[in-house]
């Protein structure tokens, strides 16, 4: 859970930084997307780096979901008779919604790939013009796309808030002062990542990027 989670978090950071290039203009953004395809050439074939990354991420996602499923099944088996009266979980909202939040994020990732990688669900859908795809995607009349992106990114924020803390604990974080620090880091990281991802669709929506 923790190890695959950390790999996915590293990807999330890189992806967010890449997204933010949209603020330096269409040419720069398209150039960055093109550069990703050509990364490692001639050592790797064209788009070779992207495929390596895709295989790596897919493996991490599958292992992450597998570990979560094992934990969920064990939890279910560990309490065959439920409580008639159960107080709400006292821990954070984030900790309580890890499983359903994960499902929302998975559905979003499927949609996101069909939208901006394959272009199937995108109004422009031209892989050579990613800037145009993004601008068309978050146009004001397609407000429901922006809404879905927002819901998914906020779900991701909650997932990360507990996930970062829990991963570091699983990897051996053990002092009380460290725990306080890790909780703050997890919260700040989740908020920064949320903001970093949401600023792009909202910039398009408000016409800041066009």
């Amino acid at each position: 859970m923790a190890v695959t989670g950390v790999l996915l978090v590293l990807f999330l950071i890189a992806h967010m930084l890449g997204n933010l290039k949209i603020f330096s203009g269409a040419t720069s953004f398209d150039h960055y997307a093109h550069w990703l395809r050509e990364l490692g050439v001639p050592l790797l074939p064209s788009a070779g780096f992207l495929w390596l990354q895709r295989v790596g991420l897919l493996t991490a996602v599958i292992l992450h979901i597998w570990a979560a499923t094992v934990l969920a099944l064990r939890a279910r088996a560990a309490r065959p008779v439920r409580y008639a009266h159960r107080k709400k979980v006292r821990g954070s909202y984030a900790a309580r919604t890890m499983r359903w939040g994960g499902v929302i994020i998975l559905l979003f990732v499927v949609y996101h790939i069909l939208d901006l990688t394959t272009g199937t669900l995108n109004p422009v859908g031209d892989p050579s013009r990613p800037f145009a795809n993004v601008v068309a995607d978050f146009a004001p009349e397609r407000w429901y796309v922006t809404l879905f992106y927002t819901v998914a990114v906020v779900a991701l924020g909650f997932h990360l808030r507990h996930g970062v803390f829990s991963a570091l604990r699983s990897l051996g974080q053990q002092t009380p002062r460290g725990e306080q620090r890790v909780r703050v880091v997890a919260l700040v990281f989740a908020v920064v990542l949320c903001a970093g991802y949401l600023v792009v669709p909202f910039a398009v929506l408000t016409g800041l990027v066009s």
Partner: protein
Amino acid sequence: MNLTLRIWRQSGPQDKGRMVKYQVDDVSPDMSFLEMLDVLNERLILAGEEPVAFDHDCREGICGMCGLMINGEAHGPQRGTTACQLHMRQFKDGDTIDIEPWRARAFPVIKDLVVNRNAFDKIIAAGGYVTAPTGSAPEAHSVPVAKADADSAFESAACIGCGACVAACPNGSGMLFTAAKVTQLSLLPQGQPERYTRVIGMVDAHDEAGFGGCTNAGECTAVCPKGIPLTTIGRLNRDYLAATTRHADTPGA
């Protein structure tokens, strides 16, 4: 105070069990929760009914025998308190109180509110001890222990094994108990020889007993009557990682 109780009644391990409603009148706010149950039981016996079975021993909050899910909270609404030390002044006149046993596959119900916590003994038997012959208490200064380590070990050693952590855990995990029993020894010099075989053995015994896995939700710490911190689980994880990587050749590990 007049109270309505809804109590889990189950005549034996095979019985399906059900919540049964009882009325208890003239309860003093100065009674402990268990004394209130004693009053109910005396009335049940006088009426020729079967009294409610519940575990208890010292009634001083240190033995770990009592354990009730009171209104969905392990040991009731007061933090850092066992059910026997909970007083009726925590409730209001006319309240309805739900009382259930700990719910976990590893803790099967024996009768009514009494569960079998043998699974905890199995975890202890898998490594919760030191093999060094200790004899009588040695001179305290002969083996130096850092103050911080001694404090953390003592914090873990405060665990009374009541099982509230399992009862409250959304995953039905016994990791806080296991972590407390691992770290009370792994932080001290006497616990070093078996440090890495202990953690593997005890976590394996925990999993075999049918407890769930830990997701660091933190419910256990919130209800623990002894306030064992969640960082204890981090210490267990650290030892477990070391045992499975650096000490892979440890005999028995």
